[in-house]
């Protein structure tokens, strides 16, 4: 356990919890942050520590990604915990919340245990399993939240699935509340979404593709808010994409409901026009929306209504993507590009850097009850260093994920991660 202390000096420290930027350094001792601030300099630290001169680069807490498909168990041809965590480390993500949509699904304490052991043995970053809200992700029977939580499940979600039956959702929320379990729900009314494959509107009509109206998200989200009002359990809207959904969340917040929400980096930086001529790497769930919705989402990030940004990392192999648009699977990888894509919003002046990072660090940490994601003495030394201005072009083939379905292929981004520490250990440099 006892490593040589590391001092990251001469850095632009971004503290997302405080919303502040200062010059200084971070001293890491035994995997924890031992000191942070202007006092951490080469002169102060002396020779007892490995010194890393950051040359004015940003140092911030490592990112926490609340929505990642890691492929294990059952889909190792798409991703493994090892490859996902390599992608995460390269992208500055130091904590992954794994989705339960695996084969078998994570709906049994033994599978939670399996995932934790695999992560311990093969992952470079922290991998925390979420578990199913309903058995088999079937939307019918509530899962064993008590036993699953004891086994190490961090939160409960049916992942890509939305619970259609309101009585089941009510019971799930009610039972989860007794165990102080966080419910993370993907809200989509399956009947309204129907056979749609992209955002409903003019573009879908021109392309001759079935549309998913924004109401498909809002109707289920509205139902969930009424249930939260009834039950008063913790609820996280896992993935919202529209102005209409933001209005639903805003009303719930104003009423004092214990509700938080997240969005994928894709819905903050891309819109339906990116689909262009049937490009399936931009086929996502929820679908990429109109630019007005994207702008509303960015504004919500800036003003704090949107709590969390996730990669919604969903590795898919070519067989499932190189298909006619209507037949291709939904999803994109994102662990490795989430930060740089997010920095577009900083460079465009829409969002401050601390605010962007808060949505990827302290906010998920608070929602999940994790000690990391903070730049403060005593916190785990999960840290990243990056130059937000350094340009690079995304080379899909060079990405660490086993699948290469990135919507940022050949994109010009800024802000490559230069150093990633997890509990003080260098996992990417």
């Amino acid at each position, binding site marked *: 356990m006892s490593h040589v202390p590391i001092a990251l000096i001469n850095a632009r420290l971004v503290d997302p919890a405080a919303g502040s930027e200062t010059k200084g350094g971070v001293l890491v001792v035994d995997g924890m942050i031992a000191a942070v601030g202007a006092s951490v300099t080469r002169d102060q630290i002396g020779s007892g520590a490995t010194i890393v001169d950051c040359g004015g680069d940003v140092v911030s807490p490592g990112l926490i990604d609340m929505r990642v498909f890691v492929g294990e168990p059952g889909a190792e041809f798409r991703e493994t915990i090892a490859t996902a965590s390599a992608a995460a480390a390269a992208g500055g993500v130091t904590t992954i919340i794994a989705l339960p949509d695996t084969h078998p699904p994570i709906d049994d304490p033994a599978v939670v245990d399996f995932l934790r052991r695999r992560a311990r043995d093969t992952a470079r970053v922290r991998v925390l399993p979420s578990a199913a809200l*309903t*058995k088999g992700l079937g939307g*019918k*029977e*509530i*899962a*064993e*939240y*008590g*036993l699953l939580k004891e086994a190490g499940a961090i939160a409960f979600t049916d992942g890509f699935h939305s619970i259609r039956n309101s009585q089941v959702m009510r*019971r799930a929320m*009610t*039972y989860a*509340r*007794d165990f102080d379990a966080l419910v993370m729900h993907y809200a989509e009314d399956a009947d309204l979404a129907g056979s749609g494959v992209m955002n409903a509107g003019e573009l879908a009509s021109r392309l001759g593709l079935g549309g998913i109206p924004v109401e498909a998200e809002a109707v289920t989200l509205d139902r969930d808010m009424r249930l939260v009002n009834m*039950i008063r359990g913790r609820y996280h809207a896992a993935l919202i994409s529209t102005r209409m959904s933001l209005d639903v969340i805003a009303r719930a917040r104003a009423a004092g409901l214990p509700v938080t929400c997240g969005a994928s980096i894709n819905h903050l930086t891309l819109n339906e026009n990116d689909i262009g001529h049937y490009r399936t790497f931009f086929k996502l769930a929820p679908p990429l929306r109109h630019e007005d919705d994207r702008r509303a989402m960015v504004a919500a990030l800036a003003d704090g209504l949107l709590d969390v940004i996730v990669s919604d990392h969903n590795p898919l192999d070519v067989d499932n993507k190189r298909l006619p648009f209507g037949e291709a699977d939904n999803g994109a990888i994102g662990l490795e590009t989430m930060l740089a894509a997010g920095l577009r919003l900083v460079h465009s002046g829409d969002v401050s850097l601390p605010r962007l990072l808060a949505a990827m660090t302290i906010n998920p940490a608070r929602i999940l009850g994790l000690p990391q994601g903070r730049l403060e003495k005593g916190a785990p030394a999960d840290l990243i260093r990056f130059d937000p201005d350094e340009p690079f072009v995304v080379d899909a083939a060079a990405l660490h994920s086993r699948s290469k379905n990135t919507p940022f292929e050949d994109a010009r981004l800024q802000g490559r991660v230069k150093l990633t520490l997890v509990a003080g250990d260098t996992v990417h440099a």
Partner: protein
Amino acid sequence: MTDISATPPFPHRHLLGIAGLSRLDIETLLDMAEAAAPLSRQVNKKKDTLRGRTQINLFFEASTRTQSSFELAGKRLGADVMNMSVATSSVKKGETLIDTAVTLNAMRPDIIIVRHHQSGAVDLLARKVDCSVVNAGDGSHEHPTQALLDALTIRRHKKRIEGLVVAICGDVLHSRVARSNMILLSALGARVRVIAPSTLLPAGIEQMGVEVYRDMRKGLAGADIVMMLRLQLERMNGAFVPSLREYARFYGLDNDKLALASPDALVMHPGPMNRGVEIDSSVADGPRSLIVEQVEMGVAVRMAVLEALSRHLPNN
């Protein structure tokens, strides 16, 4: 057995629930039952209080202990007891409850004991007959003789009910036993707690005069009586609780959890038990279990009820 004339008169023609009984009514029945208990331990268990009377046990829901308990109570008081098996009756042919009541009434019974799966059904039947009616359990509403036998069992061991902390644990939502016990024990001055996952608690339970706990370990702290409820197996599998093993882990009574209650806490269960689910065998069969005695007191309580009602029987 007690001289009937020595006890205060029981002012009701039917026993449809604990709600509606005064504290004096309840204590009268308990005193009568206390006096009736020794009779069942004698060689000659017969009395002739109900000689010549006809008692019909009309059970729309399967029952072993309640039906046989009422049957024995009636027979020990000298009544002619008839068991109506709904499985082979006209009810199976689509007869309505009211028609069944009118038909039975025409046969001039003196007492009808009714169990029905619908809350309020016994009350409806009682309004259509001329004899006395005893509720042997209606839906999720009331099971008054169970609450009386529970109270009698507690009183015999603790010598009081006033001031005791009674924790009722399990499927309160669907339990008529829980509802009758909550009313009766509160009326006699006990502090009643209910313990269950929120999915098994009825709405508004906080307004029903009980303390509510979702965490069994907290709810058991300092309890004098731990009253477990049966969980219907069909409610286990993901509908109200996720699984047997999860329920047993968090809401099953084992020695570990029982150690959190009072050092002299006693354990009850209305039966039939799901061993290893809501109650561990080591507790059910252990020295603090009153479960078998509850069954014995069941006969005594039902004799007392029949006796009390007999003073209102027609032609008396």
